[in-house]
């Protein structure tokens, strides 16, 4: 493979030089949050040192500069996911807020008692609870499409009914790594005139996403899992839908004209951006996108697939290790359990070796229930991880098995 050099990428991430318990950090908790390249860190300090003021309101130079950078970041996001217009890019706090926005704005306007919202058995809590809240408010019903033991959706049983009003599905599962057949799901739903929200929190960092090719109606993701800062995220929505939706929160920026009798709402996307946004966060997210495009999402996807394959083969050779999530189409996540060793013990002991993994239910308790495990250990990879780090993980797991006897 040409051009892809993890060594060079690693040099861009200052934190990868840290030592944990005297050992070089091996960061394998990327599904929870990724580390930040220098480009993102510097973009953040550059804004505050040179370009910071509030956006969309001042006539002064700095406000104009901040606004240009902020809107420039929106354009970068648009291009990154190939949205048709930057009016369709709403800045939010993260995936969670994006989904809540759709539930409360689109949902309350279009979903009523007895109507159904269809999700899947592998959703993150943030793609479950906002719908449960909506159901409590409206009397709508939450339906769950099943998966098989490998952690793949059973498409034959992905059933929309006469009452289905919205489908909301993870593009990639954070607990299992499963990449869902989202294009097919969109076709199925659109066949019945039902819009689709895709939770892209996990998918976006691992490969190119084209919202127009997917034809999804909403797409949500978080900056902090995409090598950008926390506190900023994106809701993409088709302009036609966003236009018809009522505002979610009220305040400054989202209005055009206010009297005490009534207010006239601003145009897209500002209608959904009440209050001062995370200005520096959005700009730094733009820097993260520039950084990733410099490497190439295709190259990242290809490299991470090789890492995942390598890690999977090695893990399978360990006796007593069970991989949780063996979908044919997977992103770079290896979730597993060990016979006789609890994930929390694995997490603490790997940490002693400088290896950061997640141990727990990964905000997907229904997935844990499905596999009848209290928790799993999850190693999740990013473009800066190496084959040597996978070796260290595997060796660490073997040592743990040994001390537990």
């Amino acid at each position, binding site marked *: 493979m040409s051009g892809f050099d993890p060594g060079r990428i690693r040099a861009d991430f200052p934190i990868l030089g840290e030592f944990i318990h005297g050992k070089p950090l091996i960061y394998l908790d990327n599904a929870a949050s990724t580390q930040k390249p220098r480009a993102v860190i510097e973009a953040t300090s550059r804004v505050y040192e040179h370009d910071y003021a509030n956006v969309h309101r001042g006539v002064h130079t700095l406000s104009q500069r901040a606004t240009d950078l902020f809107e420039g970041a929106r354009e970068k996001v648009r291009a990154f996911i190939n949205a048709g217009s930057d009016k369709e890019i709403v800045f939010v706090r993260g995936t969670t807020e994006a989904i809540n926005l759709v539930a409360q704005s689109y949902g309350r306007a279009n979903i009523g008692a007895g109507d159904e919202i269809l999700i899947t058995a592998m959703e993150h809590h943030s793609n479950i609870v906002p719908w449960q809240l909506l159901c409590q408010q409206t009397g709508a019903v939450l339906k769950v499409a099943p998966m098989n033991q490998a952690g793949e959706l059973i498409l034959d049983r992905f059933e929309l009914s006469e009452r289905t009003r919205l489908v909301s599905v993870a593009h990639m599962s954070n607990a299992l790594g499963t990449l869902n057949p989202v294009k097919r799901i969109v076709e199925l739903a659109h066949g019945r005139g039902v819009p689709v929200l895709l939770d892209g929190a996990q998918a976006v960092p691992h490969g190119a996403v084209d919202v127009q090719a997917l034809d999804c109606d909403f797409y949500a993701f978080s900056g902090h899992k995409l090598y950008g800062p926390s506190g900023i995220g994106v809701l993409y929505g088709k302009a036609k839908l966003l236009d018809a939706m009522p505002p979610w929160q009220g305040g400054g920026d989202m209005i055009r004209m206010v009297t005490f009798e009534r207010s006239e709402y601003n145009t897209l996307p500002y209608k959904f951006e009440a209050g001062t946004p995370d200005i520096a966060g959005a700009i730094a997210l733009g820097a993260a996108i520039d950084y990733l495009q410099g490497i190439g999402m295709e190259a990242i996807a290809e490299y991470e697939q090789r890492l995942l394959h390598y890690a999977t083969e090695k893990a399978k050779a360990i006796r007593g290790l069970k991989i949780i999530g063996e979908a044919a189409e997977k992103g770079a996540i290896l979730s597993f359990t060990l016979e*006789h060793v*609890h994930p*929390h013990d694995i997490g*603490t002991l790997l940490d*002693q070796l400088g290896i950061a993994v997640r141990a727990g239910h990964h905000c997907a308790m229904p997935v844990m229930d499905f596999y009848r495990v*209290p*928790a799993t250990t999850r190693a999740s990879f990013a473009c800066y991880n190496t084959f040597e780090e996978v070796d260290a993980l595997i060796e660490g797991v073997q040592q743990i098995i040994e*001390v537990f006897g």
Partner: protein
Amino acid sequence: MFDEIRDLYQEVVFDHNRNPRNFRVMEDATRKIDGFNPLCGDRITLYIKVNDGIIEDVSFQGSGCAISTASASLMTEIVRGQSEEQAHEWFELFHRITTGQDERASFEELGKLAVLAGVRAYPARVKCATLPWHSLEAALKNEAESVSTE
């Protein structure tokens, strides 16, 4: 290997994890309580049989990490045969040492509990060690059906 963490993962912990004591359902329990740590999904069901203010029998079931299993197992050994008041004092002592509020407690005083004192250096794991004890405390107080470490 793992030398630096032997203060937490001592042989005693491994031993109690492999062979937890009093790990059984108690049919004639006078009180039963479910403990749950929502952070990690650990669950424990604690059974006690109290007669005349004395804990005549105590046992547990559930799935948890080595720290919580060993803690529960050691706890059953410690409080069995003790009065409710004594058991409560053990709870208080354990709570103080695991949260680092009492670093002076001598090893004689701590007895078997000394094994778990090391957990205070690992804040992320303190709740694993305290879950069984919180469950016991709730059972002694005859509180609601389940407790949670949150």
